[in-house]
């Protein structure tokens, strides 16, 4: 047990951070309150640094999870991208309130401040993702997933004091609860099929069942229901319907968060569940076909849906749906290449998607957030950095070589083809082609169009989101330089424990 606690050191750091943030946010010292973001970043950085020390080969040899190295990879990058996410949320909370306090127009009241809570919730959610890596049974998995989800519901609601944000939170929460129930029921059936919660034992039972002629019906339905429940987290069809609304309603920084952290959690959980039955002789046909259908629907519906949008965030929301579809190719393809591709893609997608949302988050129009497509028209004249970051990240999401996104897609394609999923890859190619239309529209609006009366007053006012956008855009351009080492890490992450 102590061994397992050792692996939880990064989570513990982040959890401590959450507590510190929550308390610090209530501090009377304005300097502390305003630097909550730095504190959060600091703890994430610490978690990041801790990862290599925690995951030494000797320690890992004692681990009893399905994928002992997974945590090393995921925790590191979740914390790293978490820093970017915190940066993009810089200036989101309490900005006016703190401004008013500074001017002396208001006095500090612990009830009216929310910055601390926000950062605490953010860190909690990241801790949830980290915990998933250490899951060795269904209970842990369930709790970790809930830890990821519950804070995000609150974050959506508090990200903006507007009706749409609350509506978004309501939809997100209610539908999330339904899907969680579905997933839970799936877990129950899995339990019924195997009689155990422990992954390694479940895997043995399933192996025995397969040897005896196939996974039991309970097992199949259980897997399906659980995966559909998780599809909600990754916004895959048909559980994706909430995503555009929620992504539009929340503020850009929170949307960036939603599009990465819960998605990573869901992806990891799906990979864990699939690894229960194993890819050795192919996934069970029912599961594989279902994932196939889900992947195709997700890629197509996501990209098609984005075409007609007039809201940038909604458009990018659809785009993030589509990216889940791409990643499912890797899940279907299975280890080692497919899972490696998914893990690499998660990182690449996380960085570039954050860049896109951060470049939106830094904009404001007379103090109000920016949403419609027309608002970013001619952005390059007023804020070339934000416009360029947006364009670069869109290019990367589209997969224009040699940007980072291309390499992720290339690996997914390679994995898909290597698994014999030619049709799936072709569908992905078509879907990518469709996506070119709206990504180019974003690029064109930000870099090429001229300013319109509506977009005249749109400027990049928030400093930290802009910095986050630029950093992640640089990652999108320069990332390929370190791609090889990322892939090496990901390859290690999917290694099975040594017997």
């Amino acid at each position, binding site marked *: 047990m102590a061994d397992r606690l050792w692996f939880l050191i990064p989570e513990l750091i982040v959890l401590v951070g959450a507590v510190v943030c929550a308390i610090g946010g209530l501090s009377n010292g304005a300097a502390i309150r305003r630097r909550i973001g730095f504190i959060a970043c600091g703890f994430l950085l610490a978690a990041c640094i801790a990862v290599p020390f925690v995951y030494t080969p000797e320690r890992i040899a004692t681990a009893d999870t399905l994928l002992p190295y997974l945590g090393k990879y995921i925790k590191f990058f979740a914390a790293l991208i978490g820093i970017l996410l915190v940066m993009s949320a810089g200036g989101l909370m309490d900005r006016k309130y703190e401004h008013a306090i500074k001017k002396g127009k208001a006095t500090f009241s612990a009830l009216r401040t929310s910055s601390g809570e926000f950062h605490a919730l953010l860190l909690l959610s990241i801790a949830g993702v980290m915990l998933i890596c250490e899951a060795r049974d269904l209970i842990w998995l369930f709790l970790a997933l809930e830890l990821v989800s519950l804070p995000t519901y609150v974050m959506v609601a508090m990200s903006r004091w507007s009706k749409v944000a*609350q509506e978004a939170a309501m939809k997100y929460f209610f539908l999330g609860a339904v899907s969680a*129930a579905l997933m839970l029921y799936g877990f129950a059936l899995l339990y019924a099929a195997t009689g155990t919660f422990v992954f390694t034992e479940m895997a043995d039972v399933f192996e025995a069942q397969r040897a005896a002629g196939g996974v039991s019906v309970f097992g199949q339905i259980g897997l399906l229901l659980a995966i559909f429940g998780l599809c909600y987290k990754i916004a895959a069809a048909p559980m994706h319907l909430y995503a555009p609304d929620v992504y539009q309603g929340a503020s850009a920084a929170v949307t960036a968060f939603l599009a990465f952290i819960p998605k990573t959690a869901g992806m990891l959980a799906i990979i864990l569940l699939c690894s229960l039955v194993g890819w050795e002789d192919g996934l069970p046909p029912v599961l594989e076909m279902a994932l196939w259908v889900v992947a195709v629907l997700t890629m197509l519906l996501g990209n098609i849906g984005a075409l007609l949008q007039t809201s940038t965030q909604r458009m990018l929301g659809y785009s993030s749906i589509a990216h889940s579809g791409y990643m499912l190719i890797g899940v279907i393809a299975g280890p080692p290449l497919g899972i490696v591709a998914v893990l690499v893609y998660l990182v690449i997608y996380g960085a570039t998607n954050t860049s896109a949302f951060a470049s939106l988050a830094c904009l404001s129009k007379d103090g109000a957030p920016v949403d419609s497509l027309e608002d970013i028209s001619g952005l390059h004249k007023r804020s070339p950095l934000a416009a360029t970051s947006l364009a670069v990240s869109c290019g990367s999401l589209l997969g224009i070589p040699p940007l980072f996104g291309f390499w992720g897609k290339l690996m997914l394609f390679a994995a898909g083809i290597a698994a014999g999923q030619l049709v799936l890859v072709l569908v992905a190619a078509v879907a990518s082609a469709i996506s070119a239309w709206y990504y180019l529209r974003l690029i064109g609006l930000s870099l090429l169009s001229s300013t319109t009366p509506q977009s005249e007053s749109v400027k990049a006012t928030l400093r930290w989101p802009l910095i986050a956008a630029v950093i992640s855009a640089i990652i999108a351009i320069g990332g390929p330089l370190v791609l090889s080492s990322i892939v090496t890490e990901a390859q290690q992450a999917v290694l099975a424990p040594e017997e």
Partner: protein
Amino acid sequence: MMTTFAPSALSGYLIVSGLLLAIGFIGFFVRRNLIVMFLCTELMFQGAAIAFVAVGRYYFDYSGQVMVIFILTVAAAEAALALALVVLLHRQNNTLDADAFGELQE
């Protein structure tokens, strides 16, 4: 005192749990009041909980019951969250009719 638990009995429990799930879901989508809708999701959770208990009993495994405890905890957390949200929405809109929240759409 342990008594054996026939597969037929297990299926009975599972059917009940499935029915709870279905009823919860149907309630979710036919009722318009947000609080009732939330209660319906709780119903779905409890459906799953019954399944866990029944299966745990079937296998003589306490983990099922452990799970249920956790489910209850999570459900409580969700309830707190839901309550806060409902209060917020009601304060803002003076209604709890789900149809009133349709501003975000195509």
